[in-house]
């Protein structure tokens, strides 16, 4: 037995290229699954690690007129654990490479911070005249410790300068690159000087009992109202979600699907190669049997062959998976403001690696080994390793006309059909790879088109919200601005129906700035009791129908509303954990919020919608309304942020598709290399009768292209339903998507895949052209 083992180990050195391809197949399969599993685990760990010590605020709101004792007052309220105030403003900064948006957070004392704790990752917290940026800000603009940045409240204001002294990590803040906006920290006095305010304007509250958070928000609202502090509605934190968690979950789900797809493809690739190795070994198995080798000895011997490859591939794939997982985690945690957890090894990933790597390899080896071990000695000894017969009459007819162009092309195409099972396996690999590619293209396009459709609902070029509500008639004041063509007073609030948190929007009945898409019922009107229109996702989530009555909890009050319509609107903003929207008449929402004839949000349409004009108008609006604490939002910027978030999704998916494509191309390369090994004699004869390198390359490229062509046709057919499934899965997880698949991208996939395969197939062609006729004819 020891001799047999030695033989197998030496055999491993006989087929270096084939063994490398088999290893590559195992490594890719294992690495993909391990990488995604470890990423999912690490992101969960990152979430735990980041939020465990960050003392996340459960309630947050902008407030106007708070005094230094407001936080103490709130802390004495029932269910309140801690309260803290900050000075926050949305403004712009410049490091010398252009103005960028920034959320500037001012703190009285960084040492006394008790909620939404910010951690210094480099440098230190700022003092007067200094600034510390969230570390993700570097994705937006080049900024370094020691550099000086200019900050301005509005274009008309003088510039204030601050020296960068540190970088921070801020939990619950999406990356600057994703939000298209940086977050920075300064002493509170800096924000007050910039804004002209005399006190903090942002309130954070941590509660004891999460289930009573909304009630506590109502109590605090009433208390502050009595004290003359006006507040916008509270944001109530969902304890089970963090900013970006929904997007991350979707991404990991899709990556998981692709990683298992990759693993399945790798398995086919490995099985294909090992089956070819076994067929080559038939004569040797016959010799071993003829000199007394027993079945179990043969089975064991060749299982060792598979095991050595399996073990090496599993180990390398596991290590590669951990490294790739670490890189993906780093990327995702930077985007979502999570702290990257320390490197760790989990038993689950070792189990997955063994399952995908070792088990697949052994199973792939076992079947051909058993078949050969059970075969009769005479038939094994007679076997040339490859059958010479070719009985594909139909293929002969189809490819016959090609011989008038090039006999070498016909030889290649017919060679592709000589091993039906292997051909089928290779076509299957290409089919799945192409289908995955088409599906990802469809998903990417569907998400992108859906975002465009969603933003088309809103005719507004931007919004301005005021920290201090103003009279709805202020809209006509704003309309006097030459940049603005139309303004509507809106109001927005956070609320809940039952346990489902949602966003509430109040707007006029005939609002030209919102083109609602009614699915059922009618649009909002002013009524008593109030009527509401729900978005389809919210209606689905709470199982509501037109005509139903539901209690709406708006924080400061609760009221039973009648559902009069359902609209299709899945638009959301990054980091929003609320489910859908409730649309009501502005007067009804204002009544529920006790705002009377006031509004804290205005939607505006501008004379020009290009980013430059919007930014100019936005700055002018901020300047004119600065006494009300304006925060402006532009539609183009929101759309850009959404696109960036989608960019992350499609980027990661494309990476997985590249892995799948590599497996697919490897499958073809592997099949061609097996073809060369099996047909060395034929290539030698071709050389002997006058075939040059070019002819041999043409034979192999034709074989590869034939396999790819069949795989491409099948892959495109399978790709369409797969794309539907993928878009549906994403719809269920993220938001409702409309299906889009571009024929141009399908054609492009076809062309690129064929060119890639042709290029890759040329390599085995060059390998085959190195076969010297004497090597195969000498022992004739």
């Amino acid at each position: 037995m020891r001799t047999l083992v030695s033989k197998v180990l030496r055999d491993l050195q006989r087929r270096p290229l084939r063994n490398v391809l088999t290893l590559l197949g195992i490594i890719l399969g294992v690495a993909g699954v391990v990488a995604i599993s470890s990423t999912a685990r690490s992101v969960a760990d990152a979430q735990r690690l980041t939020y465990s010590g960050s003392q996340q605020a459960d309630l947050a709101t902008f407030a106007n007129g708070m005094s230094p004792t407001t936080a103490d007052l709130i802390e004495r309220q029932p269910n309140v654990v801690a309260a803290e105030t900050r000075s926050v403003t949305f403004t712009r900064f410049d490091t010398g490479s252009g103005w960028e948006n920034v959320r500037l957070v001012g703190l009285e004392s960084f040492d006394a911070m008790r909620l939404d704790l910010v951690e210094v990752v480099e440098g230190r917290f700022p003092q007067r005249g200094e600034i510390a940026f969230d570390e993700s800000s570097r994705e937006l603009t080049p900024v370094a410790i020691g550099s000086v940045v200019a900050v301005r409240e509005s274009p008309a204001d003088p510039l204030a300068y601050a020296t960068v002294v540190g970088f921070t990590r801020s939990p619950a803040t999406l990356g600057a690159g994703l939000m298209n906006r940086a977050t920075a920290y300064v002493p509170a006095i800096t924000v007050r000087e910039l804004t002209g305010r005399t006190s903090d304007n942002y309130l954070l509250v941590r509660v004891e009992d999460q289930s009573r958070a909304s009630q506590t928000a109502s109590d605090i609202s009433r208390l502050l109202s009595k004290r003359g502090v006006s507040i916008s509605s509270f944001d109530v934190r969902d304890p089970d979600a963090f900013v970006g968690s929904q997007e991350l979950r979707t991404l990991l789900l899709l990556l998981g699907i692709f990683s298992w797809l990759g693993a399945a493809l790798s398995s086919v690739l490995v099985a294909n190669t090992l089956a070819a190795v076994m067929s080559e070994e038939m004569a040797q198995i016959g010799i071993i049997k003829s000199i007394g080798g027993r079945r179990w000895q043969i089975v064991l011997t060749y299982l060792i062959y598979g095991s050595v490859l399996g073990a090496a591939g599993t180990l390398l794939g596991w290590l590669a998976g951990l490294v790739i997982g670490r890189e993906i985690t780093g990327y995702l945690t930077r985007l979502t403001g999570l702290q990257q957890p320390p490197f760790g090894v989990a038993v689950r990933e070792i189990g997955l690696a063994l399952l995908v790597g070792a088990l697949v390899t052994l199973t792939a080896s076992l079947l051909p080994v058993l078949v050969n071990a059970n075969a009769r000695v005479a038939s094994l000894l007679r076997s040339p390793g490859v059958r010479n017969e070719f009985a594909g009459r139909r293929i002969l007819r189809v490819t016959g006309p090609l011989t008038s162009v090039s006999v070498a092309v016909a030889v290649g195409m017919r060679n592709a059909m000589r091993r039906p099972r292997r051909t089928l396996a290779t076509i299957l690999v290409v089919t799945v790879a192409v289908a995955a590619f088409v599906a990802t293209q469809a998903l990417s396009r569907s998400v992108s088109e859906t975002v465009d459709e969603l933003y088309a609902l809103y005719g507004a070029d931007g919004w301005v919200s005021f920290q201090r509500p103003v009279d709805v008639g202020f809209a006509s004041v704003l309309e006097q601005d030459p940049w603005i063509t139309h303004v509507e007073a809106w109001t927005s609030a956070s609320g809940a129906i039952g346990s489902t948190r949602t966003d509430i929007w109040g707007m006029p009945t005939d609002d030209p700035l919102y083109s609602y898409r009614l699915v059922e019922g009618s649009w909002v009107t002013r009524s008593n009791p109030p009527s509401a229109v729900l978005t389809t996702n919210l209606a689905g989530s709470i199982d509501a129908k037109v005509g139903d009555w539901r209690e709406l909890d708006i924080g400061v009050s609760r009221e039973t509303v009648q559902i009069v319509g359902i609209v299709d609107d899945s638009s959301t903003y990054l980091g929003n954990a609320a489910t859908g929207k409730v649309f009501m008449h502005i007067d009804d929402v204002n009544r529920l919020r006790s705002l009377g004839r006031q509004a804290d949000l205005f939607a505006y349409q501008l004379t020009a919608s290009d980013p430059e004009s919007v930014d100019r108008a936005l700055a002018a609006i901020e300047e004119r309304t600065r006494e009300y604490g304006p925060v402006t939002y532009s539609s183009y910027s929101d759309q850009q942020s959404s696109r960036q978030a989608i960019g992350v999704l499609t980027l990661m998916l494309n990476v997985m598709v590249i892995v799948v494509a590599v497996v697919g191309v490897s499958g073809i390369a592997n099949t061609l290399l097996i073809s060369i090994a099996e047909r060395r004699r034929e290539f030698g004869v071709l050389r002997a009768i006058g075939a040059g390198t070019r002819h041999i390359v043409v034979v192999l490229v034709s074989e590869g292209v034939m396999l790819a062509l069949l795989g491409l046709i099948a892959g495109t057919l399978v790709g369409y339903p797969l794309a539907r499934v993928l878009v549906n899965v994403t719809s269920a997880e993220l938001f409702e998507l409309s299906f889009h698949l571009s024929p141009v991208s399908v054609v492009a996939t076809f062309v690129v895949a064929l060119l890639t395969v042709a290029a890759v197939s040329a390599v085995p062609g060059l390998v085959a052209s190195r076969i010297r006729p004497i090597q195969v004819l000498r022992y004739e």
Partner: protein
Amino acid sequence: MKHEQPAIRVESVHRRYRSGRRDIPALAGVSLTVEYGEWIAIVGPSGCGKSTLLNLLAGIDIADEGAVTVAGRSLTRMSENALASWRGREVGIVFQFFQLMPTLTVLENIILPMDLAGNNRNRSTRARQLLEQVGVLELAGNLPSELSGGEQQRVAIARALANAPRLLLADEPTGNLDSTNGSIVVDLLDALWRQGTTVVMVTHDPDVAAHASRTVTMRDGRIIEDELGRPRRRPPVALAANG
């Protein structure tokens, strides 16, 4: 047709093969000259170097020492690609085990060398003429696996003649055939020789060798005997080139 140079000139050729740690001499100082229009039979026991010599003449093996000149070209310093191209144009090879392409029909197998050499004119017509010449035209649409050994070897001879080579090299052309089919193949070679083709044939069968105009006997990598057989004949008409 008068030729200034001999068809083949082999001068003091040595060829060794490595077996494990030892060098086995396959040819040890072989010299041979073959004129156009000759039919040479190389005979000798197994392992005497006759197939090695034929491979050197075909340019599918390269001598370690000495010079091999075939049809005026020195093969010693040519690249593999140049040798392949030269072979396609100048030499026809017949193998013991036929070596037809299994995925090509009989007709396509004949067209293949023309395709490789870039001879695109009247390929199909010429292929059919050759098949008719070797007597298997009715099998043109068949695959090699559907043919008997004798039929396959006749197709192989037709393939060897596809580009109208002046030199035909045959390695044990009857070695894998029964006596009836062997006779047919020898008759075919005889006809080709009579038409002017220079034939170099390796065989271990004395009856087959007897058809040649000259017999070269080898032993232990050396030529030990070189005798004329039937009188050398000048061909009355050269075989039509390229249809």
